[in-house]
Structure formats: structure tokens, C-alpha cells
């Protein structure tokens, strides 16, 4: 049975819904629905393997085939499902995972692919769509913690990335913590007393109000939200500090930047941050692909599996949607530099946690791993699936682009039923 409805079915349902008179409300269609969503503390961990992790050296091995590479496959905790031998720890946790092996996307360039994937590659509406993190931040808000709703832990520099938010406005951009560290000067300077600080903030508020009279509302909101974020972060500076954790924890995640960033991400999730993105760079293995994956995948395996274990132990896996992906996979054929190039035609995305069906493989590639053999899925289907997993009906929820209702995910695609719990 084809798990997909036809695009026409989807369009009809959306039109019918809009015809019901709710479409003109803008933003979230129903404030009541939004309130329910906010009440549930659903969270997202979004692990981004920048450059393109090889599906053949990870989630979808094709051992002993023409393009299968040098590695063996190993059994997982789900009978009949195998991973590459470089992921022994995750193989033991396959029963918590849902892996879509039939990703078929459009863009084979980093420059455009990263954005297209993270924005869900919707139909061109003439405006930049928000990244998934920004969409979740808008739709679910910061949650009870009040912490910034969309944070990004990455190697290198940090800062605020307003452009992630697209037409939602800068308020929903990502707050990046370079190397998992807090923003510089986060804490109040010791020479400034609490009273002085409070007085300064009062003055700032007053100036902000004057500033607001001559500025666009969303710019003012963004400006104010930065101070709100800073205030919340000042109160929770502890979430950046992994030194207080048991040594064993730091070892379990791996003594490398990805492992330690994942550990910071765990603390962010525990503190209630709505959407945490963790980026690992360096997966664009056009050269020496096998040795590169032999050194990198085990580090990913270690940190990602430790995270799954801990989220399960703390109960957070029940409320946290975990997603691991890249902008594309890597070519089956091996180039002269012993590398694999960019391959959006047949690759894999892994998920776990809230709302997804555990222990499930969705779709399949052919024997050589060259093409998707089953129903192919574009990233739009994944956005539908993720929103649905978070309890947001992507067919009945819209963004408000200054009065223009826009679908939150590609309006000719729908969620992947097999992937949903």
C-alpha cells in the first residue's frame, strides 16, 4: 500500500480546511490549538552532519556489493536490520530509531542544499522559509523554561543568526553557541551591582519604547527578545558547564568536540530548551572517504548513542523528537581520491524519540545503493512528518507572512505514515 496520499488529496484537504473560515486568522490557525501545543513540553534535538555523511558507511550499508565499500555490516537490535560496522553502539539501539532509507532530494550543492533541506524546500513563495528550528520556535514557543527556543551548538564562532527565521522575522532566528560556550560577557560584570543593572534595564526599556514607535513591529520584538534571552541565559549559565558532570559522562560522549557538544546539548534539553541543533562539520569526504568515516563515524556513534541512552533514562526521549541528517548523502561510486561525492538521490535520515515509530526502517534503496527502490521521499515529507510527530498538524496549521497564510511544509507533500508512532 502506498503510504502517501496524492498531492491532490492533500490540496483538497487543505482547501477544505481553509474554506472553513479559519485560514484568515494568520499565524497559528487556532489560538486554542497553540495553547495546547505550548502546554506540552515537546522538544527537538536536531543533529546536523554538515557536508554529507555517507549513508553507505552508516545507516544503509551494502556490504560486498560494487559500491558497498570496504566495511562489513552488523546486526542491530531489530532483527533483519543491519548498520555499518562503524556504528556498533547505535546498532544496539536500533529499536529506539526510525531510519528513512529512501530520501531522494533535489540539490547536490552545499551552498543551496543546506538551506533547502533545513527550510524544508517548500514551493517558491517569493520569501525565504524558516529553518525547521525557527518554525518550531514560532509554533511551540520557548516553553516553560523561557530559555531561547532555538539554539545551535556548533564548532567555531557563535552569535545570533536571524536569517534562519526567514519571513518569520529575526525573533525566531537561531542563537549559536560557538564551541558550546556561552555568549561572551553573559554574566553581569562584578563591578555592576544588581540595583545598577536593574536601573540600566529600566532605562533601556524606556528607550526601547521610543525606538519601537518608529520601527517595524517584528524588528522591535526581535530586539526585545535578545534581552529576554540574555536574561534567561544569565540565570541558567550552568547549562553550558559540563565540568560539574561526572567524569564518566564526559567519557561516554567522547573526548572530542562533537561528543562534548552533544553533552552540552543534553544539558540544554534537560533545562527545557525547545529546539537544540548540534552541528558536526567535516563530512564532505570527497577524498579518503573510508578512512575519514572510519575515524568520524565511531565518534558520532559514541555521542549519539550516549545521548539516546541518557534521554531515555531521564524520560526526555518520550517528549523529545531526535533527528539526525545531512544536506545529502554520498555517491555510490568512488572517485580517484578515494572519495565519495554528493548524492541527493538515495540517502538516509535517522530519527528517534517523540512521535516516531521506533525500531522501524522506512523505504529501501536498490541492491547497489544507487537509487531508491521504494517510494522516494523529499525533505518536504520529512517536515510534514516532524511537525506531525510534534503534534502540529501540518495540513491545518499555517504561518502568517504579514497577513499572507503560508503552509508550514511543502503543500504537495504529506507526512510519512510509516514513520509516525
Amino acid at each position: 500500500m502506498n503510504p502517501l496520499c496524492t498531492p491532490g488529496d492533500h490540496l483538497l484537504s487543505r482547501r477544505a480546511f481553509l474554506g472553513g473560515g479559519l485560514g484568515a486568522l494568520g499565524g497559528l490557525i487556532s489560538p486554542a490549538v497553540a495553547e495546547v501545543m505550548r502546554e506540552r513540553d515537546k522538544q527537538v534535538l536536531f543533529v546536523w552532519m554538515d557536508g554529507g555523511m555517507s549513508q553507505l558507511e552508516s545507516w544503509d550499508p551494502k556490504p560486498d556489493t560494487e559500491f558497498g565499500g570496504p566495511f562489513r555490516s552488523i546486526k542491530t537490535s531489530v532483527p533483519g536490520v543491519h548498520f555499518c560496522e562503524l556504528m556498533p553502539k547505535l546498532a544496539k539501539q536500533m529499536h529506539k530509531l526510525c531510519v528513512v532509507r529512501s530520501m531522494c532530494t533535489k540539490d547536490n550543492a552545499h551552498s543551496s542544499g543546506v538551506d533547502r533541506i533545513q527550510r524544508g524546500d517548500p514551493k517558491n513563495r517569493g520569501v525565504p522559509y524558516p529553518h525547521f528550528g525557527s518554525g518550531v520556535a514560532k509554533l511551540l514557543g520557548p516553553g516553560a523554561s523561557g530559555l531561547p527556543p532555538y539554539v545551535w551548538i556548533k564548532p567555531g564562532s557563535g552569535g545570533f543568526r536571524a536569517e534562519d527565521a526567514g519571513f518569520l522575522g529575526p525573533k525566531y532566528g537561531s542563537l549559536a553557541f560557538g564551541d558550546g560556550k556561552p555568549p561572551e560577557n553573559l554574566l553581569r560584570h562584578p563591578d555592576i551591582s544588581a540595583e545598577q543593572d536593574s536601573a540600566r534595564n529600566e532605562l533601556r526599556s524606556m528607550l526601547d519604547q521610543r525606538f519601537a514607535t518608529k520601527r517595524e513591529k517584528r524588528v522591535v520584538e526581535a530586539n526585545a527578545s535578545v534581552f529576554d534571552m540574555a536574561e534567561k541565559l544569565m540565570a541558567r549559565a550552568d547549562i553550558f558547564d559540563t565540568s560539574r558532570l561526572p567524569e564518566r559522562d564526559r567519557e561516554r560522549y567522547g573526548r572530542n568536540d562533537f561528543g562534548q557538544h552533544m553533552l552540552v546539548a543534553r544539558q540544554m534539553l534537560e533545562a527545557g530548551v525547545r529546539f537544540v541543533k548540534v552541528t558536526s562539520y567535516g563530512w564532505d569526504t570527497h577524498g579518503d572517504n573510508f578512512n575519514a568515516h572510519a575515524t568520524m563515524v565511531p565518534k558520532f556513534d559514541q555521542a549519539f548513542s550516549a545521548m539516546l541512552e541518557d534521554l531515555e533514562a531521564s524520560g526526555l526521549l518520550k517528549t523529545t523528537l531526535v533527528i539526525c541528517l545531512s544536506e545529502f548523502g554520498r555517491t555510490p561510486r568512488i572517485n580517484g581520491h578515494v572519495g565519495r561525492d554528493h548524492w541527493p538521490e538515495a540517502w538516509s535520515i535517522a530519527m528517534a524519540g517523540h512521535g516516531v515509530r521506533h525500531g522501524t526502517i522506512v523505504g529501501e534503496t536498490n541492491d547497489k545503493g544507487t537509487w531508491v527502490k521504494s517510494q522516494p521521499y523529499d525533505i518536504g515529507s520529512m517536515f510534514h512528518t516532524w511537525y506531525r510527530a510534534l503534534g502540529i498538524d501540518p495540513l491545518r496549521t499555517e504561518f502568517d507572512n504579514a497577513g499572507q497564510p503560508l503552509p508550514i511544509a511543502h503543500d504537495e507533500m504529506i507526512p510519512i505514515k510509516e514513520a509516525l508512532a
Partner: protein
Amino acid sequence: MNNREPKQFAEIKSEHQISAARFSHDGSVLVTAGYEPVVRRWQFDGKTLAPLPSLEGFHGYSTAIAFHPKLPHLFCADTWGQLRCCEGEKTLWQHGAAHDGWLRQIAVSPDGGRIATCGKDQFVRLWDAATGKKLAEHAAGEDVYALAFSPDGQDLAFGDMRGRLVVMDHDLKKPQRTLDASALYKLDRIQDLGGLRVLLFIDGGKTLLAAGTTPQNGATPQSVPTILHFDFASGALTRTFTHGANKEGFIHDLVQHPDGHLMAVTAGTPGSGMLFLTNPADKEPFHVNTKMANCHSLALHPDGKYFVVTSTNRDSNGNGRSLGKNGEYKTNSSPLHLFEM
């Protein structure tokens, strides 16, 4: 030294990608290993290569190949850990799991009595060449990429992913010393780059060469082919030889011609790659051939008159769909270039 210029006299097409090639002790047979679970054999008559029946039954990729110095025995291995000794098509002995996974290299002792192997499982193992009996093993603590016996057979050197070069006694009982070849290694974020790829004793064992690349960046390595010269007696690094731009990548194979000069092949960014010949003490090679793209192996004929370089077809890379004339998914291959000195 006799700086003879080699001339290519033939090119043999292959449908597969080759990562290693070696001649038998009498030069009559060339064997190749590569990105397939097969070891291919070729008859060499001084003019061309004619295919012989292949050795099947490997898994993943066939990787390491080495001939006995006096007998027609071939030792070959794969990335799933298999180690096999063959005479022609006949298997003399075999271990299905000599290593746990990728068996990276094989070295044969000068007298042909023992072979040494190393692998991704971080072990170095010593085997009786005649029977395949395991004689000793050493837990190296890192993915071991390369190894070589000293010409007198008394020492075994091996090098790992991090550029650590260890010298042990010939029966693997105790490490004697560790040399610093870390110039061939770099950690870039979570990627271990480079590593010690080739070891070669020259000058009758006075000098040990460690080859690979000088890593600069991860993901898509841009780096310069590099050979480190160690005085074997003292362990001192006496020379660092680099050649080429940073697109040239790794030295994948390195041999010494009976005339004394070194012969190396390189592969880096697709389309780059070269064969160069240099005297060990010279600053620049006396011969460079950049007509072949992405060269991965060099097999020197025992008489020194001939050698074979395996390269990669041009246009071996490309993002996204790259289909052939009939809509088939394109693959790559390794031409075999036959040279005479």
C-alpha cells in the same frame, strides 16, 4: 646513479579500480587488488598483460598483496580480515578472520619464512609463511596502516594512523623504539587525517622512509605528498621530502629501483596525480609524469626494466546523477600503464 627516463609502451584497460599491484618473484605474473572482493591476475610477457583466472572469495575490498621473495606464493587479504596464501589459483592456506575487519598491509620477511600483517583492529600479527600458523601478535593501540621488515629481517617497523612509527624485534616480542612521523598526521575536528601509509627500508636498512601526506584540512583533503627519511640506527628524522602542490594528496606507493632511485605514485584531488622518480638525496625528482590521473599503485618488475602504474580514469568525480550513454550509473576504472626504463 643511473637516472634513466621511463617510457610508457602500453596501456591496458581494466573495468575495476585498482589500489595495489605487485609482480611475482619471477616477474611472470602481475596481481592487482582493489575496490572489489577479487584479486586479479595478469600474465606478463614483457610486452603486455593478459588476464589470468582471478582469485575470488574475498569480501569488501581486496587490499593487501605481497609475493614470496623466492617462491610463487602470493599472500593476499581483504577488508573483512581474510588472509590467504595462494600458488596460482590454488589456496595453500587461509584465515577467514586473520584480523577483525580491514587488513591493511602485508610484509614478507626477506627470507620468506614469515609474514607480518596489520589492520584496523589495531593489531600487528606475525605468521609462518609456509603454514599460516600465527606466531605472535602485538596490540598496537591504533589503526595500523603500514609495516615493513628490515632488509636483515631482524626488525619489523609499523606505522599507524597518528603517524607513530614503532620498531619491534622480528618476533614481535618487544617494542624497541618509537619514531616520530607525526608530520603525517593531523586531527581536524573529529577527523583523523593522513596517517603513515607506506614504509620502505633503503640503503641496505640504514634509512627508513615513511610516506603519506602532510595533512592540511579535513573532509576533502588538500595536502602535499610527503616522505620522511629516518636514520634507522638513531631514529633521527634526517629529511622531509615533499613534492607537488597541495592538490596532489597522498603518496600511495613507493618502491626503490635496483639503480637506487625512488619511484612513487600519488593521488589527490580527482584529475591530479603523478609518477615521480627521484634520487633519495635529491631535492627534486629527475622524472615527473602527470599524464596519469590519481595513481594508486606501482609494481616494479624484478629485473628493474619494467614497471606498471595503475591510475584512475579522468572525470572520476562528480556530484549527483552522472549517467552513462545508456542511462546506466557510471563507474570508475583503473587503466594499467606499462613502462620500461
